[in-house]
């Protein structure tokens, strides 16, 4: 059967009509072709092919499984719709695969917040190309001397695509559905038939390519059929595989790449999206040559993503790449990253100057008058820029900082740079492929931090004495990895971190660089240190009990996380009972976050045994609303609500009846019940008329304030309904508050 004659009939769900695509020519029409074979396409089992223009590679995407692959799927039909997507008039007939446009720079320009950042249909122009037209360069041309070219071929779209998929999960119905097609036919495009004979690359090999681009002398080998490929340059090549012997320890540790076809169950589940961060071995580079890999990861990123900068007045010569990716004391005249948006240029140049100022490489100009700018204000303005101006500028800031950390001659400047990196990583995420590059960069550079005992601090990453790896290097790298992972989960922050937060993050940098001994012996999970915020109750309790078992008698062991009585006692000690609007009025955000950080670090260091400490109370600045706000924040940050969702409807239905409320509370998991009742017991103290006179917080007000912290109503678009339900949540809390007085001690230590 001639391929020319095969037309795919594709049903467009948005438009509600079918259209027809010629698989070979890419022609498109609405009317059914008469003289051709029609292949019906249904929405399962088909893969689409996409061109990642940034990386000059093809990749394949299965809508059904949400897999991407750099190799053609061996047993599935593949369809491309390039012409269709290229014609603006036709776009309305397809829904655009969100996955495909992510690697495109255009989509980076949009902030990827939770509700925005969907690729514009315009970006399809560039991302989607017919695979037959794709002209791959032979991989055999990729000599070592030509690393940059090779880098361009190194596939990385899945990095980007995973983010996209994660977002799809968040967006739920709002995400545009990728093109759906389906093919019942057994006909494959000719070029793919040949590739069916290729063995599928093992995932570890593929992820090596993704994660360790430009790895040390890579012996690039072809798959068994490689020769046939080079003979037909119009056939898309599967990515080259590296011979296992050339894999770096780092890249080997990425074996469970989220893109692995070997883990088909949920390759893009939120947990696995971040797997490169989690599974990246924290072991420091042990061979001198390996260090080159780490530093070069950034330089190779630079090779593919950077603008070409020129200098000179008459004869403008391009600045060599290694110079571009190294520290400089001069200004830059263009953004480092390629951009089409003029507005970015100004922001990028300004942020570069600020980075230099912060690191002490550029004197601040005073203009003859008092300048009240300091480091923190510069940092805040950089962060503000990154928060508000979208992903592209965020990446620009990250690479600018990496550039200034690369081969930085000054230890002081370097240290300030690391501090800034920690602050950045707590504020907004880099894009996915840059994130991996940064982690490798940190791993390669952490050895030269001023806190270590080596004397070769003033050299670049390549000058380190790697035969004796610094013990803390991996600890800091995993700290950064953790930070990036965290910021991916939470998304970019909505507001600029306060001065206190920035200062704390900077201090933490030093601590993290120095802290190494104990942590390395533990598993990665413990290395994080259990924080009490955003951690499941059972894990908090497990850790607390482990600590308490050795130090505290059983009768004295708490049945609830220590932070709860800590904060509640702090509210009491700070005269919460006589403060007008207690619980209602928020504490100063700076103080709340300071107290949060303090408590968190106490938990890591000693389990936070004493409570509340004088210094904790000090942080609160005499305002009981600070611990009160933090208590509510802690409740809201629990991974599952204190009253779990499974109980929600029950609670709503029986909110006014004390008996049913009591029986629901009794059926709650033990820890949840104790926390709930302990808090209720405390709030009951505020119901007495004497206290009310001072606080003006009536039972209704207390219920309004606390209900949304105990419950988390299921997400709904129906806001009226949500408000309706929230009234019942409040009623539930009110019923509980007006019920029998709770014995707080019994909730704390269990029934005697």
């Amino acid at each position: 059967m001639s391929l020319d004659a095969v037309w795919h009939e594709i049903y467009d769900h948005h438009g509600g009509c079918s259209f027809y695509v010629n698989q070979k020519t890419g022609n498109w029409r609405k009317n059914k072709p008469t003289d051709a074979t029609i292949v019906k396409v249904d929405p399962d089992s088909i893969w689409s092919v996409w061109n990642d223009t940034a990386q000059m590679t093809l990749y394949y995407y299965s809508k059904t499984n949400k897999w991407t692959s750099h190799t053609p799927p061996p047993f599935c039909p593949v369809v491309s719709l390039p012409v269709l997507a290229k014609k603006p008039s036709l776009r309305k007939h397809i829904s655009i695969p969100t996955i495909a446009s992510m690697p495109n720079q255009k989509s980076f320009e949009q902030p990827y917040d939770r509700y925005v950042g969907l690729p514009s249909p315009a970006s399809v122009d560039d991302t989607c190309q017919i695979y037959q037209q794709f002209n791959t360069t032979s991989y055999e041309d990729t000599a070592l001397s030509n690393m940059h070219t090779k880098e361009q071929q190194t596939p990385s779209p899945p990095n980007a695509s995973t983010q996209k998929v994660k977002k799809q999960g968040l967006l739920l119905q709002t995400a545009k559905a990728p093109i759906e097609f389906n093919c019942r036919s057994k006909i494959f495009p000719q070029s793919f038939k040949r590739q069916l004979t290729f063995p599928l690359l093992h995932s570890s090999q593929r992820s090596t390519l993704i994660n360790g681009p430009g790895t040390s002398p890579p012996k690039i080998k072809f798959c068994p059929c490689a020769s046939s490929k080079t003979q037909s340059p119009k056939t898309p090549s599967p990515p080259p595989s590296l011979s296992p012997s050339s894999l770096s320890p780092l890249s080997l540790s990425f074996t469970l790449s989220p893109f692995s076809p070997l883990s088909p169950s949920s390759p893009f589940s939120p947990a696995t999206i971040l797997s490169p961060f989690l599974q990246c071995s924290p072991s420091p580079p042990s061979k001198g040559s390996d260090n080159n890999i780490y530093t070069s990861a950034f330089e190779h990123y630079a090779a593919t993503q950077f603008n070409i900068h020129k200098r000179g007045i008459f004869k403008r010569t391009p600045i060599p790449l290694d110079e571009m990716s190294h520290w400089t004391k001069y200004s830059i005249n263009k953004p480092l990253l390629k951009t089409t948006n003029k507005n970015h240029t100004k922001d990028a140049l300004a942020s570069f100057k600020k980075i230099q100022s912060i690191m002490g490489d550029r004197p601040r100009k005073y203009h003859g008058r008092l300048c009240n700018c300091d480091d923190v204000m510069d940092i805040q303005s950089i962060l503000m820029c990154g928060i508000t101006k979208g992903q592209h500028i965020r990446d620009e800031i990250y690479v600018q900082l990496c550039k200034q950390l690369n081969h930085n001659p000054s230890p002081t400047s370097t240290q300030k740079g690391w501090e800034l990196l920690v602050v950045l990583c707590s504020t907004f995420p880099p894009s996915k492929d840059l994130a991996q590059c940064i982690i490798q960069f940190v791993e390669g550079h952490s050895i030269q931090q001023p806190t270590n005992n080596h004397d070769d601090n003033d050299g670049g990453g390549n000058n380190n004495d790697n035969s004796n790896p610094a013990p803390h290097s991996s600890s800091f790298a995993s700290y950064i990895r953790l930070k990036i992972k965290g910021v991916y989960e939470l998304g970019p922050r909505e507001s600029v971190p306060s001065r206190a937060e920035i200062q704390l993050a900077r201090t933490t940098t030093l601590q993290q660089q120095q802290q190494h001994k104990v942590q390395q012996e533990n598993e990665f999970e413990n290395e994080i240190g259990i924080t009490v915020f955003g951690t499941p109750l059972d894990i908090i309790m497990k850790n607390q009990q482990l600590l308490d078992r050795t130090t505290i008698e059983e009768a004295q062991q708490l049945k609830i996380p220590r932070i709860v009585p800590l904060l509640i006692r702090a509210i009491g000690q700070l005269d919460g009972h006589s403060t007008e609007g207690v619980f209602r009025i928020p504490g100063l955000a700076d103080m709340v976050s300071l107290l949060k950080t303090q408590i968190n670090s106490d938990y890591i260091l000693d389990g936070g045994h004493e409570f509340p400490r004088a210094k904790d109370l000090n942080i609160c600045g005499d305002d009981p609303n600070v611990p009160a706000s933090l208590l509510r924040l802690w409740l809201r940050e629990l991974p599952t609500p204190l009253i779990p969702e499974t109980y929600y409807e029950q609670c709503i239905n029986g909110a006014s009846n004390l008996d049913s409320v009591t029986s629901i509370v009794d059926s709650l998991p033990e820890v949840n019940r104790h926390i709930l009742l302990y808090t209720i017991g405390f709030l009951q103290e505020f119901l007495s008329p004497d206290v009310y006179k001072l606080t003006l917080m009536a039972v209704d007000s207390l219920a309004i304030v606390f209900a949304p912290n105990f419950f988390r109503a299921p997400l709904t678009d129906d806001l009226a309904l949500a408000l309706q339900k929230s009234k019942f949540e409040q009623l539930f809390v009110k019923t509980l508050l007006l019920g029998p007085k709770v014995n707080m001690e019994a909730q704390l230590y269990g029934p005697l």
Partner: protein
Amino acid sequence: MSSYNYIIKYIIVGDSGVGKSCLLIQFTDKRFNAGRELTIGVEFGTRFISVDDKQIKLQIWDTAGQESFRSITQSYYRGAAGALLVYDISRRESFEHISTWLADVRRHANPHTTIVLVGNKSDLDESKRQVTSEEAERFAKENGIALFLETSAKSASNVEEVFVKTAENVYEKIKSGEFTSNETSGIRLGPVQKSSLSEETQGGACC
């Protein structure tokens, strides 16, 4: 009154306890209620005003200041033509949190939304003041906030002005074409305007 030219949507945001609901009640009902009831989620009030001889119906959404309600209230930001950021001049914290509220509004509302900074409780004794008007004015200027006023919901000082000036600013934007009438811009045509203007506004895409 059933004949009006525009409906303009406002939102009032700010920390809990700064007097957002009191401002609204003072403006719509001309009374002050020192009650301590908390706002649950979002409540709203309406009033007609006239700007440049045009009748404008203000639809004012009063949001709960509790952080725990933020996720609900943010969805009401969409399509607000005016946003009142309220702080309490006797509580410095509420002023320091304004930048967070501002970021929220910028993030969730229309980019052309007229943002107004309001320092409430100006009736309080000067000794209780923790935020000077100079400081707030500078903040407004630095952050591109169109208007700043100190009000008192209790004495009704400047309350009318805040709402009317915001409406004037929005109306200027309508006239200059920065806003067109549709749901996302927070401006809808009233029955009067619809008949005369419906052709003009057809196809106008906002932002």
